[in-house]
């Protein structure tokens, strides 16, 4: 009777707007009298200055103001620290404008506001700052050493945080080992690079004392709190709206970037709307980065390939500040053992300041790193013991009969990593079958004789998803019969409006077209945190379900009064409540909504409206899992790699909308392939970024991404009512290790071992030739 919508490949309601140019991205917002801002950014990785001379810039016709740290007053106090860490030694957060000292190339020093962006950039050229450059700490390993130049002069070391975590008998594991693998593994620095850069538009309405901010943020509610606080305004006077946002991937959640404060500050000061649109170069130097870690691991194994224990000491490049906390390191260490039954794990990380842009999560938030380490270790232990890469994994997997199996690791949001509701051996079997892994292995000897180097790689992943904090959703049936759904967490293209509508429409038995969804506006719904960590479906989806179920219960109650039939004998269908078996005895939801607002007879202490809000937090989070497998062909004369086949086996529990799930997997995998073979940020010794354009930062295009074959294993999560496990980051997590494994397998005759990603053709040719100077010159 109720139409099933959860699980259906419903067309995305967002697409018609997005694909026909009718979306409203930040740069589409044009307000009367609007001015344009540009940011003066530090050209030095580390320098002091005492004087900013803006006289020539201010003299340029059309320039309205140049704002420096001295103008900001209390608005320039350090930004909040988002995540604590028990090992923090020197937490340091950034300020909107650098007060006399800059710590990375790209740090904001002043804001120019002018009639146009062109003029604002002309004015930037005219501002003089008396920088006195100082030695910078750029290389992560060197920066961690005593005696390195200090990023923060008031500390005695660049180590911001040192944290250890242990479970199981690690000493015992190594004592019992037949074999110990020791090596250093490096996922290099990269960045999310969403298609739309960041941007802020702010308007201050003096007569209402209201500040409205359009912001490409992934967390408008949280951003409102920080901005109001810094500007000394009540939250009630500040509205933050995340309009259509063209991709986030983590880089757009930060509390807050300088411009999110500077633009509203300028709009208020000047009494004119102000727009700032980040250009791509700014995005490379003024937005956050991710990825670089250096892991030194020791893996204890038996001769038959059972992993007994792992020690991982790693350095985490925090960039110049650590306002997000060392969250990527926390996630990397928590997810390290993946789907494997490793009795003892010891991790220790040092988050290190360097004179480079701040590091914060990017799709996977440290999980791609932890995953690369574990999966590379699996390959290397297998190689050392003469085992097949698939076989060693099979031997170590947590099996369904072991579950629930507590790994002993604690993920972000204080979520224990407890394996359940998934069948890892079945995932592996499916991957091997889809890849024809056995076939690849069979053909290898003959192919190698002919100089054909084909290889297969596989990598598992377990992904922490539905993490704290909570999100909330309100569902309200209007007397028009429409159902209004509001939530605080915004969308950056994930299709939340479609999936929320599916959940609510199915629960209330209304056509999805009747459901109106709004999100990402702090003036409509101001609870919850934001969109990150593959958690929207888990926390937001279950809140939507809870709210819709409460509305349904209330509708049945109201209909029971109206029809004088017990609620148990009533059902919802086609936008109405009717008597079971007697559909002609019905009352439409619209009429119930009307009845729920008895304006003349409402009893004090009761609430009007057919509506409910629900807030959901999953104490045990949720974990998705799966396997990536691929076949590559390596051109042994050029080091170029072609991906011949790519298979993803994926279990994210119940799929609310399989099309959207596929989209998340495809996009994530594409970003993962970018991190495996293309995308790398580099700096010179003085901290100058060497990669600030898409000519140098090689994002794979549609031409480089092979067709990706997806197999779903939909096993329901027992941890939340919807049975979802979350999707979003999974695609990006195992691609690094899977690709590296495939290249190693192809180049097995050369004894190739991959210890750093991204690979590039010179690195691959170096593996073939046994060179050690594989990496590019800088």
């Amino acid at each position, binding site marked *: 009777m109720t139409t099933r919508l959860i699980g259906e490949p419903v067309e995305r309601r967002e697409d018609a707007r997005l694909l026909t140019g009718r979306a409203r991205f930040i740069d589409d917002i044009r307000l009367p009298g609007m001015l344009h801002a540009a940011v003066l950014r530090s050209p030095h990785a580390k320098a002091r200055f005492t004087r900013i001379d803006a006289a020539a810039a201010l003299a340029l016709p059309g320039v309205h103001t140049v704002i420096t740290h001295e103008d900001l007053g209390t608005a320039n106090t350090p930004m909040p620290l988002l995540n604590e860490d028990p090992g923090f030694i020197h937490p340091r957060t950034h300020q909107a404008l650098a007060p006399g000292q800059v710590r990375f190339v790209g740090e904001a020093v002043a804001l120019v506001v002018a009639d146009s962006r062109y003029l604002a950039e002309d004015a930037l*050229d005219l501002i003089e700052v008396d920088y006195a450059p100082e030695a910078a700490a750029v290389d992560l390993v060197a920066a961690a050493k005593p005696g390195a130049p200090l990023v923060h002069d008031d500390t005695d070391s660049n180590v911001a945080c040192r944290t250890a975590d242990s479970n199981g008998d690690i000493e015992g594991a190594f004592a019992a080992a037949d074999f110990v693998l020791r090596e250093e593994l490096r996922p290099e620095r990269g960045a999310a690079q969403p298609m739309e850069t960041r941007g802020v538009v702010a308007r201050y309405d003096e007569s209402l004392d209201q500040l409205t901010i359009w912001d490409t943020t992934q967390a408008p509610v949280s951003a409102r709190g920080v901005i109001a606080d810094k500007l000394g305004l009540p939250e009630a006077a500040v509205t933050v709206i995340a309009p259509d946002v063209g991709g986030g991937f983590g880089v757009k959640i930060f509390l807050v970037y300088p411009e999110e404060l500077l633009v509203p500050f300028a709009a208020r000061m000047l009494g004119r709307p102000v727009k700032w649109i980040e250009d791509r170069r700014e995005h490379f130097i003024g937005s956050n980065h991710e990825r670089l870690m250096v892991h030194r691991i020791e893996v204890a194994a038996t001769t038959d390939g059972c992993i007994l224990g792992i020690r991982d000491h790693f350095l985490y490049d925090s960039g110049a500040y650590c306002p997000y906390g060392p969250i990527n390191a926390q996630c990397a260490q928590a997810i390290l053992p993946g789907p494997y039954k490793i009795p003892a794990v010891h991790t220790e990380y040092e988050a290190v300041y360097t004179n480079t842009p701040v590091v914060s999560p990017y799709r996977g938030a440290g999980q791609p790193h932890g995953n690369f380490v574990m999966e590379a270790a699996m390959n290397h232990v297998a190689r050392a013991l003469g085992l097949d890469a698939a076989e060693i994994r099979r031997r170590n997997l947590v099996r369904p009969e072991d579950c629930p199996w507590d790994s002993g690791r604690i993920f972000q949001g204080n979520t224990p990593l407890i394996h359940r509701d998934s069948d890892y051996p079945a995932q592996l079997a499916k991957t091997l079958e889809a890849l024809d892994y056995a076939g690849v292995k069979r053909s290898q000897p003959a192919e190698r004789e002919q100089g054909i180097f084909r290889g297969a790689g596989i990598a598992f992943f377990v992904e922490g998803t539905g993490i704290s904090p909570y999100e909330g959703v309100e569902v309200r049936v209007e007397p028009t019969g429409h159902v209004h759904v509001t939530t605080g967490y915004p969308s950056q293209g994930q299709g939340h409006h479609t999936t929320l509508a599916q959940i609510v429409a199915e629960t209330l038995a209304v056509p999805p077209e009747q459901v109106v969804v709004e999100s990402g506006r702090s003036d409509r719904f101001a609870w919850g945190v934001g969109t990150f960590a593959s958690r929207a479906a888990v926390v937001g989806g279950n809140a939507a379900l809870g709210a819709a179920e409460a509305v349904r219960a209330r509708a049945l109650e109201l209909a029971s009064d109206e029809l004088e039939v017990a609620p148990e004998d009533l059902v919802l269908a086609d936008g109405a409540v009717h008597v079971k078996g007697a559909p002609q005895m019905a009352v439409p939801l619209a009429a119930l909504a009307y009845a729920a607002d008895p304006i003349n007879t409402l009893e004090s202490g009761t609430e009007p409206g057919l509506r409910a809000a629900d807030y959901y937090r999953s104490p045990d989070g949720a974990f998705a899992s799966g396997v990536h497998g691929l076949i590559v062909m390596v051109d042994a004369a050029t080091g170029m790699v072609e991906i011949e086949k790519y298979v993803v086996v994926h279990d994210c529990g119940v799929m609310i909308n399989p099309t959207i799930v596929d989209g998340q997997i495809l996009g994530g995998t594409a970003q993962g392939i970018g991190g495996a073979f293309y995308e790398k940020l*580099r700096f010179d010794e003085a901290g100058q970024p060497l990669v600030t354009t898409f*000519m140098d930062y*090689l994002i794979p295009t549609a031409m480089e991404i092979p067709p990706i074959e997806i197999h779903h294993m939909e096993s329901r999560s027992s941890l939340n009512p919807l049975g979802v496990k979350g999707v979003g980051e999974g695609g990006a997590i195992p691609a690094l290790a899977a690709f590296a494994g495939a290249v190693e397998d192809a180049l097995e005759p050369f004894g190739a071992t991959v210890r750093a990603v991204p690979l590039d*053709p010179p690195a691959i040719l170096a593996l073939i030739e046994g060179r050690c*100077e594989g990496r590019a*010159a*800088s």
Partner: protein
Amino acid sequence: MKPPPFAYECPRDVAEAVALLAAHGGDARPLAGGQSLVPLLNFRLARPAVLVDLNRIEALARIRVGDGALRIGAMARQAAVEADADVARGWPILPAAIGHIAHPQIRNRGTVGGSLAHNDPAAELPAVMLALDAEMIAQGPQGQRTIAAREFFAGTMETALRPDELLTEIRVPALPEGTGWGFQEAARRQGDFALVAVAVVLKPDGARVVVTGTGDGPAHMEAAEAVVAERGTDADACEAAGDAAAAASEPADDPHAPAWYRQKLVTALTRRACREAVIRMGR
């Protein structure tokens, strides 16, 4: 990423364009497809006072065959040359190489003349024009002159054009019967500038082997050409030509690739392009 201020001129014919260039001395720059110049402006790496837009000069966009030679107007779009039937018949290495330039959107705007005048040190068209012994027709205030490809490409983003000269046409001589050709490129992604690209043209009376991406623009690999000329066109000759080309290349380390790697590419790609050319010669 907004350009500094500039004045804009939009001449209707070559004479007017040349006069504008002369009037502004070195401060004026021709604007063709804008696919290289506009990024330079946006990065404020180029700051011309005046842009002389060539896009309204229809006479410059023609592609025709006359006296056996291919005559490409400087403003002919790369995509137009790529799709031209006469070009495909007589000079098939051109569409093959143009297919490696960027993406269709960029080739729809980017011009052949713009690419040659810009002379990026890893661009495909300069290398191919050198391999084809093309001639560049330049028009200046003093009149017209013809510059052989060998003289035209003068180093990284340098050409023999004077600031007040316009490149108006490229003349590509006909390829004799029995000519074989090969074009090989290694780039990180489809459409990226070449890490290394090699153009080989084997005519019955001589070989052309041109390598680009290893230094300051396209370079004739004379030793490789000599190997092929001496040893004929067997597979071993191609192996040796690859070695000779690599020995003559002196790439430098850069962030995309170390020097040794580019040298390896020269070997591999020269061999492959040569083998391709040999196969085509036999047809």
